[in-house]
């Protein structure tokens, strides 16, 4: 398409987007005329007789809201004073037909009507709009009518207090859950990251509250989560390992036979055997040796090692079912590991949900207390 064609096409699309008869979704790059489309839609609505105060335009920034109001005023201002023919042309450009005498008259008066619209023409940021709704219905929103929106600094301070309260609360014997959760969190992250973590959690407090409300309390959420991933909520990593280390849990005799063969194999085979043997031979140390034991079967990245790494050709020749034995054990261990991972995920998630819920409670409490602090009459 030629440049002129492109421009023409763009204008045509703008025109159709500006038709208030259709609901449209406009996505376009900066400077391509999105505000213009909005302004034209509003103009056409008002030209068709919609009262200015019945229109709500929501923008994302205050700057965009002011910009739009100014453009609208400018356009309407020029309509109110331009010569008859020029006005007719301008309206024709907008609506794509000759304006009626009533439309011409309305266009003349729109400038002042918009300025005087009761409550003003509402071109607002989403925040300002929400604020106005809350200000209109403070009792329903359980707010003081002269509430003021908290600034980020105050919110940060309140967060800090809530966090300190949370830490203090976790010390009380009745809050053993919290204390355990905190213990877990403090192992994983340091103080600064913990604060960051809690802050990002508190930014999702609406979702968190909805989650908890949907299930009952944090314990219920965790139980549901455990069901979802198929893990007993009281399961622990140690328990999983010691359970899987019981003699009945694996094919002991076969493994021992495999080790004997490996020990007679190459250097590589011996190395594998040396990882398996200690675990196999010392049942009381299996918990501690478990990580080492795993390395016999898995690569550093956690995948099952290639058969050639498990046993060399020579050993396989000597003991034809050795790969089956080793791979079966590897598959078993993979499941154990999977469960361990699930347990870890569950534990950390549970800890964060407990901490998050407690934090949000405290935050809300502090915020309520501070509400009047940031109120002005």
């Amino acid at each position: 398409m030629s440049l002129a064609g492109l421009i023409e096409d763009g204008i045509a699309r703008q025109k159709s987007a500006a038709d208030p008869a259709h609901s449209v979704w406009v996505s376009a790059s900066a400077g391509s005329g999105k505000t213009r489309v909005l302004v034209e839609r509003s103009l056409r609505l008002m030209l068709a007789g919609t009262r200015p105060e019945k229109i709500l335009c929501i923008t994302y920034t205050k700057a965009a809201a002011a910009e739009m109001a100014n453009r609208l005023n400018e356009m309407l201002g020029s309509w109110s004073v331009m010569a008859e023919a020029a006005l007719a042309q301008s309206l024709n450009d907008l609506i794509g037909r000759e304006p009626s005498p009533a439309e011409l008259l309305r266009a003349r008066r729109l400038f002042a009507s918009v300025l005087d619209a009761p409550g003003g023409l509402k071109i607002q940021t989403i925040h300002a709009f929400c604020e106005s709704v809350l200000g209109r219905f403070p009792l329903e929103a359980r707010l003081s009518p002269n509430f003021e929106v908290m600034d980020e600094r105050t919110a940060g301070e309140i967060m800090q207090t809530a966090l300190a309260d949370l830490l203090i609360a976790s010390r009380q014997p009745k809050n053993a859950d919290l204390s355990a959760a905190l213990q877990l969190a403090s192992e994983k992250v340091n103080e600064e990251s913990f604060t960051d973590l809690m802050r990002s959690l508190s930014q999702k407090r609406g979702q968190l509250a909805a989650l908890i409300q949907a299930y009952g309390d944090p314990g219920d959420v965790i139980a549901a989560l455990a069901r979802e991933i198929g893990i007993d909520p009281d399961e622990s990593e140690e328990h999983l390992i010691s359970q899987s280390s019981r003699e009945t849990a694996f094919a002991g005799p076969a493994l021992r036979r495999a080790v004997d063969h490996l020990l007679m194999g190459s250097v590589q085979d011996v190395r594998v055997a040396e990882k398996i043997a200690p675990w196999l031979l010392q049942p009381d140390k299996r918990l501690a040796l478990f990580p080492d034991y795993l390395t016999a079967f898995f690569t550093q990245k956690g995948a099952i090692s290639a058969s050639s790494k498990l046993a060399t050709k020579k050993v396989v020749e000597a003991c034809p079912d050795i790969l089956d034995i080793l791979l079966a054990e590897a598959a078993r261990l993979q499941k154990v590991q999977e469960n361990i991972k699930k347990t870890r995920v569950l534990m950390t998630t549970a800890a964060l949900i407990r901490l998050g819920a407690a934090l949000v409670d405290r935050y809300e409490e502090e915020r309520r207390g501070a509400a009047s602090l940031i109120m002005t009459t």
Partner: protein
Amino acid sequence: MTVGKIKIPNVFNIPAEYSFVDVLAKTLLKRHGASMRELSDVTVLTTTRRAARTLQSAFLRETMGQPLMLPRMRPIGDVEEDELLLEGDIGVGGGAEMVLGLPPAIDPLRRQLLLARLIQARGTSVGIAEAAGLAAALAHLLDQVETEGLDLKNLPNLVPAEYAAHWQITLEFLEILSKAWPEILAEEGCIDAALRRDLLLRAQSQHWRDHPPAAPVYAVGSTGSIPATAELLKTVAGLPNGTVILPGLDRHLDAASWEEVVRDPSHAQHGLAKLLEYLKITREDVRDLEDEAARSSVPARAAFLAEALRPAATSDQWQKAAPPEPAALAGLRRLDCPDAQSEAQTIALLLRETLEMPMKTAVLITPDRDLSRRVSSELRRWGVEVDDSAGTSLDQSPPGVFLRLLARMIAEEAAPVALLSLLKHPLAAGGETAEAFRRHVRALELAILRGPSPGPGLKGVERALATSAASTELKDWFRRLVTLAEPVEALAQAREVDFATFLKEFIRLAEALSRAEGTESAALWAGNFGEAAAGFVSESLRAADVMTAFTPAAWPELLDTLMTGRMVRATYGQHPRLQIWGPIEGRLGRADLMILGGMNEGSWPPDAGSDPWMSRPMREKFGLPLPEQRIGLSAHDFQQAFCAAEVVLTRAGKIDGTPTVPSRWLLRIETLLKKFGLDLAEGKESQPFAWQQQLDLPGAYRPVSAPRPTPPVSARPRRLSVTRIEKWMKDPYSIFAEQILKLRPLDDIAMDPSAADKGSFIHEALERFVQTYPETMPPDALLKLRVVGREAFGDALSFPAVWAFWWPRFERIAAWFIEFEQVRRKKFETLLVEAKGEIKIPAPEADFVLSGTADRIDRHLSEGSLSVLDYKTGLPPSILEVETGMAPQLALEAAMIKHHGFPAIDPAPVSELAYIRLNGGDPPGLFRSAGKEKLPEQLAEEAYDGLQRLIAQFDRQATPYLSCPRPDIPYRFNDYEHLARAKEWSGGEEGE
């Protein structure tokens, strides 16, 4: 006797192009000034007290300052007033008995607290402060309802059925007003001030109708926007000797448009049009009062503005508008400034320029109190003090702030920031001179308020002070403060106290704190603001019985809520020729130059705000004035001010970085002007802008360069510790600042214990443990180490972050350390922990002393060689840094051993230099030894030689102490970067 049938009531108008008060004063003098006696018999009903004062000064101007028996002036109130006037009667015959018969008006503050109590009694868990906020909104509604003479019983029928359930919530809440409140009032034996005003005004009307006074009565400047004042105006207009004088009635709008004005509450003339309708007269029935000596502009100006502000419904008529005559626009300027600050500076310059012209007066009118504050502070550049006669809210006034800070300090249990904010307030003197008091406060700050907070309460601070190095004098000084505050602190501990008792003690403390040496009275109550604060306190005391069970913790918020919105005004202006007014003051007054500042939507007109109780249609149905009525009033203010002789309209294009929308009236004016190819805006080349640009322009631009201090060699340090050497190498400027200038960074106020503290706790714990069990480990080693750790952490364990994060980490470190020790002790024995030592290094100027404390020196059991160890709780230097000499600490310690620096150790070969990294993470500890590429002995030797060269280099006078001379080798713990202004000269290459 009834009033005779007067066809045309006595209603006059002073057109906007004249100064209202001046024409009025001239007229009154002309009519009644023949004898002193006659004038003083005249009664003038003004809208507000401030209007009365404006009129008084107009009389003074007329008589050139000669004293005069002025007419009796009585304010009758106006909507939008923050104070309901009329405590007594209008005072013109017959009112007295009426006043005596009426119950007194209830104190506003008492009413607010009573309503708050009712809100709390509804069972929802609202704090007292929040309840007081709601109570203020309720009281506002009550005032409006009573001012309009409405009945709350009509509320339930306001909404159509589909919204009824929703409306029910509000309705139930408003039962506080309709049901509970009348009972309370009866108990109190009071009525609402708004109702009382209404009754008084109506009684006065009735009385005058029954007994028309012989002496002249004037009702001036009112638009009768309150029903009762409208009735009074009607009465006055009907009196044989009564006269109503309207402000700036329109003379230019066509008849059809005038019809529209009555229906258009946002129109500037709506109030007047409604009043004429009520008086049953037309514009033509109103006669103009004029006086050429008080003229400020031509009628064409008013005509042009009337055209621009015409009702929207007839705005198509602009098509037919004729261009304004040049005289209409003469003296009008519009200045568009980029932001609020430049607007304030431009206005200040215009005001300052006025002072260059003899006798000329100027006034800034703005509804934007932020702008007026900026302008008054800008004017102080030239020592010009101008009051903002729109006033300051009590909570923002100095005594208000002082009381709020005191409340906060008590509620926050003397937390360092709260305590210092209070004690550093200019009103704080504590019986000393302000200087002496401030000196003590600073000493207190340095002694204990920097760094981690002391315990709670002034007692906690006192305990911390007792163990500090502070002087006895300071301790005694602080004890006096503690004693003063003791009663309030004790009360504040309780969950609930009697409010009166609490308030009395609170005020006693506030007075004692603000009393300056040699004075009897507290500085707190001095001056305008002080009087207002005293009034507030006594009103609070009178209302105190309302709250028997008071939660002291809520005091700071409650105090804020109660103080906010109590406007305090200066009684007399400070400057004879310059003033700052709010729109109410600007309604009747006039100056040669009128600057209308903040011409943006949101200020001119102000935001209507949202009504928490009713929607717009509901208000209309109920009979309450629409929010647009306030816009109309504001438009009328604008109309009056716009017709002054010289008018400057200013606005800021951006406020707080956000683009603004120009005032609707400005847009109307400019749009109409555009039709004729005209506009008011002055370009950037206009003089005020040019001045404003130069106001803060620096004389010359002088970039700073990197500092190169070369203090005399005799002043340079001859002794440094091993840990300073790395700093000396990487950032000599730090050594200069720390060792020569003796500057140390201050801790933050109320800082949490820092990472450095954590390090020292852990060091101390390990040191004590190894010292206690040098040879054999105890069987319960871990337990023992934990006990030692608990002692080392000490009080810091009371900080949540410390025990929640550091302590668990320490426990993990402890477990790791015990295991480490068990292995280590099989091969090594520990010779020294925290071993202090020093050596002399020969240098050109004089011997240089290298001192140092080695965390730990071990000896290999079989080989006899030594091992130098250092615990690092942060990130230790890399092996590479150690081996290249960039982190010479361990190597220098080895060198000290070699040079007999540690008296307890015989020199022996050093075979190991190692860091023990202890961060409590995963893994909790890590042993890392240097000396892979080079032997420790060699490293020690190189470090020693390197240091010797460094000393020699700085023993030369010419060697400067540079700040981070090698940007590629930054120093991690640089406290002096800011002092060196590094950001100013090092920028450029790296950028931000």
